[in-house]
């Protein structure tokens, strides 16, 4: 097995990977039904065994190959679709999130979300034939049936780039929803349906709203935007083979209701919306959850070729829900009024809840509809479900991804990391300091660090710690970012201290946490506070909390898209930096130290860690003191201020800084403010 592609990781890793693949081929191929076989490999000197993290699956048109998109290893694994034996591993870009195989099976396009590129794989040679530039954080890719245009969903620029499918040159960009991420081509080739993972901007205090952006492939234009009321994160879409019915997996938050409200679904409902002529061109939202157990974070959706069954993967619950699609349609047609809050509805259409691996994501149905394959992202397995029986018959374990230790995984933080041994005494009062006192300090090997990070990642993505298994960390921190919403956690009373959600990346060294600064460190924030006000159920054990904290601390900032490639600033950004650093206002008057931008937003992270009153206290706030927010990738994190009252960066100063408490800004002209914001976007 060769590792190929741009930036190949060296000949030694080639040999190692080849050896690993041979071992994996012998050990992983699983003739055993219903069992998992792990690769019995160990890291060689100077390397660590990383994780592949499969997120998407595709069968080749002839059904002989299975393509597995591996997010953490940045690879496409090619397997024999019958024996699941590895055929090839192809290195692509960083954090690939979506891929698409042309109908003739000859080209595989991969969206590399952190490189802003598309890898074009020649599947006959199993090589990356070209790498094309895309927009900001490409997350999925689809080619139209004519092979004329390639559509790329860009999560950060909130659009769909239309590329020439032969040259990769960009033709135009179509505006889509906020956090544009996933696309599905209708079987008739006429439409592309696009979802987005953050809600569209909405007036303060209103329910979130999302959309399905509908692209007409004949004109390559957006022809409709199907509203998804109250939806704040929409993921995969599947369309029946006759193109009459579409189904989207989505999150239905109740962010402005108190967290004690559990009737008709808790803080998040996990739902599907049906759309298309199969439901009279209306949208019908139906629940996936049961009364006492949830199907958390529905992500992948697949429909069998005969349209008899619909499958939905739920990443937080580690299950796949099997739905009898005709029963669902019949039920929908017989109901009057909203169905979504009836958590007993599933009895009319849910056939089975099928346990699979950790954080199941993308799925693929075999051409005969008898096999459903599920990519279990966080345990590096693929579940093979026999659809007639709704049972997992085989679990394919993917080989680890070997990395040279010299490569920087951002693990240096582990050099001084402490970790508690399992089973130690818990402090009844849940004081994190007590946990630390009891923790046994130990130095971790690089491999142990990698494994601890994975455990932390699993804790981050699972919903198993919360009430009824209803939600996990990533429900609000979508893919470790934020959700663009405001939440009412009511520790101070219902409707009080409503706060907006923050980006989690690069938050190491930004203590204290929470807008109020009440949490001195991450284990406190993620441990007792989260358990008390969010999970309302079991607590993390000591090791899990340590792993979770380490994982969150390990999250690097994603690449900033507003900086020039050479790291320099544009003239506007330079002028903005001068304003950020200025000591004298436009009238020549000295600006008091505490009223300068760079005083509070100091240092590389842009925070002095102090609580400051910038005049933003609202009628529902107990205090006007809030921790200085870090500036990392601030362009992505709207809305702004502690309560999300500022819809844009501009509004922080045009509306919410009338007395110059949030920095001296009222002397600025409009173009100066634009310069300041253009600079802030580079942080």
């Amino acid at each position, binding site marked *: 097995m060769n590792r190929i592609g741009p930036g190949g990781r060296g000949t030694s890793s080639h040999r190692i990977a080849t050896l690993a693949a041979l071992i994996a081929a012998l050990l992983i191929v699983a003739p055993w039904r219903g069992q998992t076989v792990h690769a019995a490999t160990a890291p060689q000197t100077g390397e660590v065994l990383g994780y592949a993290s499969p997120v998407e699956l595709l069968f080749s048109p002839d059904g002989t190959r299975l393509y597995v998109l591996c997010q953490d290893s940045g690879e496409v694994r090619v397997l024999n679709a019958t024996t699941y034996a590895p055929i090839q591993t192809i290195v692509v870009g960083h954090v690939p999130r979506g891929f698409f195989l042309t109908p003739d099976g000859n080209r595989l396009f991969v969206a590399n979300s952190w490189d802003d590129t598309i890898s074009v794989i020649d599947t006959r040679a199993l090589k990356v034939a070209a790498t094309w530039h895309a*927009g900001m954080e490409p997350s999925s890719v689809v080619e139209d049936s004519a092979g004329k245009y390639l559509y790329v969903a860009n999560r950060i*620029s909130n*659009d769909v780039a239309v590329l020439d499918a032969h040259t990769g040159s960009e*033709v*135009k*960009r*179509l*505006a889509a929803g906020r956090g544009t991420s996933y696309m599905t081509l209708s079987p008739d080739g006429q439409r592309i349906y696009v979802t987005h993972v953050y809600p*569209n901007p909405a007036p303060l205090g209103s329910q979130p709203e999302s959309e399905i*952006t*509908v692209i007409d492939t004949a*004109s390559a*234009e*957006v*022809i*409709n*935007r199907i509203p998804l009321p109250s939806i704040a994160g929409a993921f995969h879409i599947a369309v029946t083979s006759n193109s009459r019915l579409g189904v989207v997996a989505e999150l239905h938050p109740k962010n402005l209701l108190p967290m004690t409200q559990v009737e008709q679904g808790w803080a998040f409902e996990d739902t599907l919306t049906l759309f298309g002529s199969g439901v009279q061109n209306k949208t019908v939202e139906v629940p996936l959850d049961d009364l006492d157990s949830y199907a958390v974070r529905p992500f992948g959706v697949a429909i069998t070729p005969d349209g008899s069954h619909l499958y939905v993967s739920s990443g937080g619950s580690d299950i796949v829900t099997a739905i009898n699609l005709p029963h669902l349609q019949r039920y929908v047609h017989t109901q009057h009024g909203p169905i979504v809050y009836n958590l007993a509805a599933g009895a009319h259409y849910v056939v089975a809840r099928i346990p699979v691996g950790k954080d199941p994501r993308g799925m693929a149905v075999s051409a005969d509809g008898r096999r459903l394959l599920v990519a279990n992202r966080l345990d590096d397995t693929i579940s093979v479900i026999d659809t007639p029986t709704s049972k997992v018959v085989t679990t394919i374990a993917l080989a680890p991804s070997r990395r040279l230790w010299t490569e920087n995984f951002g693990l240096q933080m582990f050099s001084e990391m402490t970790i508690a041994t399992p089973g130690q005494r818990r402090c009844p009062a849940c004081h994190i300091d007590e946990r630390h006192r009891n923790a046994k300090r130990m130095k971790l090997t690089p491999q142990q660090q990698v494994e601890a990070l994975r455990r932390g990642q699993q804790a981050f993505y699972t919903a198993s710690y919360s009430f009824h298994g209803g939600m996990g960390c990533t429900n609000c921190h979508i893919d470790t970012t934020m959700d663009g919403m405001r939440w009412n956690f009511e520790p101070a009373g219902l409707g009080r201290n409503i706060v907006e959600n923050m980006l989690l990346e690069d938050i190491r060294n930004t203590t204290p946490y929470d807008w109020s600064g009440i949490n001195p460190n991450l284990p406190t924030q993620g441990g007792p506070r989260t358990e008390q006000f969010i999970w309302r159920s079991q607590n993390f054990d000591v090791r899990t909390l340590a792993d979770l904290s380490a994982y969150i601390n390990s999250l690097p900032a994603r690449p900033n*898209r*507003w900086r020039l490639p050479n790291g320099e600033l544009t003239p*506007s950004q330079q002028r903005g930096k001068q304003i950020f650093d200025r000591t004298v206002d436009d009238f020549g008057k000295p600006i008091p130290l505490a009223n300068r931008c760079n005083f509070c937003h100091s240092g590389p992270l842009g925070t002095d860690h102090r609580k400051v009153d910038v005049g933003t206290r609202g009628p529902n706030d107990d205090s006007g003191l809030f921790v200085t927010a870090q500036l990392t990738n601030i362009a992505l994190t709207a809305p702004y201020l502690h309560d999300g009252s500022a*819809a*844009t960066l*501009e*509004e922080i100063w*045009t*509306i919410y800084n009338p007395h110059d408490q949030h920095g001296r800004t009222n002397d600025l002209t*409009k*173009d100066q*403010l*634009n310069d300041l*914001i*253009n600079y802030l*976007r580079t942080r």
Partner: protein
Amino acid sequence: MGGMLNKLCLGMVLAAIAAPAFAAAPPSAPLPPSPRMPHYRFVNYTTANGLPNNHVYSVLVDGSRIWAGTDDGLGLYENARWRTFTTRDGLAQQAVLSLALDKRTGDVWAGTMGGLNRISGGRIIATYNQLNSGLSNDIVYGVSVEGKNVWVATAAGACRLNLDTNQWSIYTDTNTPMKEIWAYGVSAAPDKVYFAIWGSGLLEYNQQTRLWDIYEDPDHQTDIVLFKDQGLIHDIVSSVSYVEKTVWVATYFGASRYDGRYWHNFLTKDSGLPSNFINYVKAVDANHAWFCTDKGLAYYDGANWAVYTPSLTNGKPEMWVSNAQGHAAHIPVTTAPANNYMLGIDFQGRDIWIATAGGLSHGIFEPQP
């Protein structure tokens, strides 16, 4: 004071010399040979048949769909029915002054008295104003889309929104040669972008060199023309249209055409323009253009003129044509645009759609034998 009087007297003399050949008033009798100019049957839309408001500031043809920016909402005429977008639908303000189509994406941009809207997939998907974005001012007189940039003319300068990065740039008297910041119109092309600056002439941005230039009335006079065809006709520029490397300029005191080398000016006294007060100009190509005036709609085919309007005296439909020699003729017609006060025009094949102060008019092309 004495200097001013001298200029005024000189202006009167020059005006008297230049006056006779063309007249702003319609001719009293046909003078053969009359040039063959396009004929239209006008169908007018008002509130009586679904238009949101009869004061129509702007019109945009989008395939088979017609957008009308009115004083009380944005109208969309599609499949013989009107739909109105209001502030409840997300319109930034009810008065829609300007419209532009992004021909690549099909998105429509609407400039209002309270900000700028983007309309896509049948919905208003974004609102930009001076508080929530980098837009320089809420009063958006003009908008034009070119490539990944949206160029905006506002009451406080010109702006550019980069659609890829969502970054705004503002252009005013501090960073361009404009002396006033009232930008009334904009026309963007891949090579150049032109802004109509009320009181400061024609502002040009070269997209290759990224340099600005300004074209001003060489005599800087408000009431006389000392240097005919030597530059822009007047500094009070209301509209601009750039096509085929030729820029057509409308002012409140005549019109100009500039091909990059030569200027040609148009006044009522020496052209078929019905009025020197021109609200809007839209070019067909380097040699053909339409002018929206306060006294009717004028078409120029490079040599001849045609004017379409309801009579200023009795409201009856009128059309008259004039040739390069100044010979003019009435053409008998039975229909006319809804009002003589014209504010905008767009083309739908050989048909025209006209924004007027009394409704929206559809000029249906009628071939002549």
